[in-house]
């Protein structure tokens, strides 16, 4: 095993990786940009190296600086986390060439899978079902128009190099295509450094179901069951759960086998995720492979009991996977909610700012992977994720109830978050019935507004806080306990919020 690794990332995922590394007695090196000088991942590492300006190109995307940092600190491997350089095959190759270990798949697998059109072709050849669509990137608008006519509207414009919804556009009529293509190409260029786009058939209210895979260097590939990630806003996942309410054991086995076949087709090594769309008839289509650790990996960890970061490091160090497919068992139900600095009332627009106060939910079955603390300023330069709240319970209803309890314990003051929105989604009847699909938010929550009952309580809090005035809190002061008031008093306007 490595004695020291560098984590080429920031925020909650860097913290999460460092915790497992510490438990494996592997020392950790953080890297940071100007604005992240006192960010949580810097505080968590054993040592930290300053990279440069806050602009990602000068810091978290800068190959040279990261490699110098690894060499100067004596790190033997680089874990890229997710985002930034995690799916950049050129970086992975450079790391290897420098005599360091990249904790992820070989550059060649990443290249194959990173280009969505190549990946689609490869999967078609191996009989993994793919969504009807173009098999090569295209920039000529006339050819895109022709392809769209052939596939049939609605079509989806997608970035060939991308992921996470970046550069993705739904196009319902031919007239919308030129603008959508141009915007998508521009977003893709700025996000991935590659503006290639392609089109595919747009499915009506499918589920997003993905399979976690692990592959060692010796050709042993297993899957760790599925995650359903249908609850999305702006094409980005916001609630994930496992198991999927939609999968029978038979379908799970078939999809799992397809995921393993997809990984094998690409010569995959390390942890990865094979994403599928599952349509309403039960047919599933290969979407893409994410060649990295996913944001939502904790729900798989909680149901399978396996630490994915530990496995990643073991695989990267050349250890064989110590279990077979039949040894991997799942138990109970896990749900993750992503907590972003964003405003659910304004199309989930980023809401950076200073965290005035933060307090973590606790208690049985709750895991909160985050990088937030009171007084920390959420930088405007990076993805606005604050943390991931994850719960595990015996079954789906208990997990929903636990998530609601945990969200209600999760205090973040100073930026907008989707917590209230998430509470309403989790309390929704159709969600509780497991009737989820990728347009769920659009269909049922597009006109969502915060409750006025919440306004009433906020007004109350403001008023009593003003009346208490500036204070140094002294408990056990001489005034004696505030006597309890009969709970039988009429609750009036406030009792609706119980």
């Amino acid at each position, binding site marked *: 095993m490595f004695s020291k690794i560098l984590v080429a990332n920031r925020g909650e995922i860097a913290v999460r990786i460092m915790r497992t590394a510490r438990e494996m007695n592997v020392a950790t090196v953080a890297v940071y940009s100007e604005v992240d000088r006192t960010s949580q991942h810097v505080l968590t590492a054993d040592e930290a190296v300053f990279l440069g300006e806050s602009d990602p190109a000068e810091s978290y995307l800068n190959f040279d600086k990261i490699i110098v940092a690894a060499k100067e600190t004596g790190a033997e491997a680089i874990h890229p986390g997710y985002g930034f350089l995690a799916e950049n095959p050129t970086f992975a190759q450079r790391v290897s060439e420098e005599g360091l270990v990249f904790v992820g798949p070989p550059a060649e697998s990443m290249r194959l899978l990173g280009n969505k059109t190549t990946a689609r072709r490869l999967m078609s050849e191996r009989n993994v079902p793919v969504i009807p669509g173009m098999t090569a990137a295209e920039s000529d608008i006339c050819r895109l128009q022709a392809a769209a006519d052939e596939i049939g509207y609605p079509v989806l414009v997608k970035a060939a190099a991308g992921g996470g919804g970046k550069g993705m556009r739904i196009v319902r009529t031919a007239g919308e295509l030129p603008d959508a293509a141009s915007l998508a190409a521009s977003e893709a260029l700025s996000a991935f450094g590659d503006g290639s786009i392609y089109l595919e058939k747009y499915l009506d209210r499918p589920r997003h179901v993905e399979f976690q895979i692990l592959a060692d260097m010796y050709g042993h590939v297993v899957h760790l069951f599925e995650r359903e990630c249908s609850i999305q806003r702006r094409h980005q996942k916001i609630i994930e759960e496992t198991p999927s309410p939609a999968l029978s054991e038979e379908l799970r086995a078939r999809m799992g086998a397809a995921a393993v076949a997809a990984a094998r087709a690409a010569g995959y090594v390390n942890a990865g995720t094979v994403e599928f769309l599952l349509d309403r008839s039960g047919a599933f289509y290969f979407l893409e492979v994410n060649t990295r650790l996913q944001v939502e990996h904790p729900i798989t960890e909680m149901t399978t009991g396996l630490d994915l970061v530990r496995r990643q490091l073991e695989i990267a160090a050349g250890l064989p996977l110590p279990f077979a497919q039949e040894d991997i068992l799942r138990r109970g139900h896990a749900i993750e909610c992503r907590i972003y600095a964003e405003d659910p009332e304004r199309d989930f627009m980023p809401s950076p700012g200073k965290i005035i106060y933060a307090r973590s939910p606790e208690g049985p079955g709750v895991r909160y992977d985050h990088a937030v603390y009171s007084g920390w300023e959420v930088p405007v330069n990076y993805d606005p994720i604050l943390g991931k709240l994850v719960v595990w319970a015996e079954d789906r209803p208990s997990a929903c109830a636990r998530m609601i309890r945990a969200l209600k314990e999760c205090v973040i003051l100073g930026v907008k978050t989707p917590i209230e929105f998430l509470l309403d989604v989790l309390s929704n009847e159709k969600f509780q019935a497991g009737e989820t699909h990728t347009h769920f938010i659009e269909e049922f929550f597009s006109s969502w507004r915060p409750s006025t009952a*919440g*306004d009433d*309580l906020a007004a109350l809090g403001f008023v009593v806080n003003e009346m208490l005035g500036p204070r140094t809190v002294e408990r056990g002061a001489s005034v004696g306990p505030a006597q309890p008031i009969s709970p039988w*008093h*009429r609750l009036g306007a406030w009792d609706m919020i119980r």
Partner: protein
Amino acid sequence: MNFRLKIGSETRSLEASPLDETRRTTVMYGEITHSVAVDAIDDNHLNVRLDGRSLNLFVGAAADGAWVWAEGRARFVEDADKLQRRKSSGLLDQPVAVTPPTPATVMRVMVEVCQMVEKGQPCVVVSAMKMELTLAAPYAGTVTAVNTQAGAKVMPGEILVDIEPLTEAKADE
């Protein structure tokens, strides 16, 4: 004590009796009266008994108001009177100018001085937290100034493009 509070787009009035020595008060919310007892747990944490029901409220002071959290719901609460003063500076209005909603970097400027624009026409594309946002003209008119350029770091309230509105007569045409 009377309070006029702005929460979101709503303004509401509350009346509360001063806290007594056991930190109790009566809060009148329109016609309904509530008995309230409060303990300060720390600088940000209040435990409130509202008609006997225990609630944990978290309060964080910010410029011109305070964030208040209750059971997963966070609100920014402003004192409506202080607010009035800010409003006259034009910072708090609904988007009626081409200004970014969050600190951002300008990607493209899509209009020029003297150009006529329609309401909703894209004027500037900015990027914030890995997302591109298009800032549209809030009303039809003529561009009188472009105050930014690609690559500039811009802040909310900064007017990126000045637009002189059409007169109503013209707009009705």
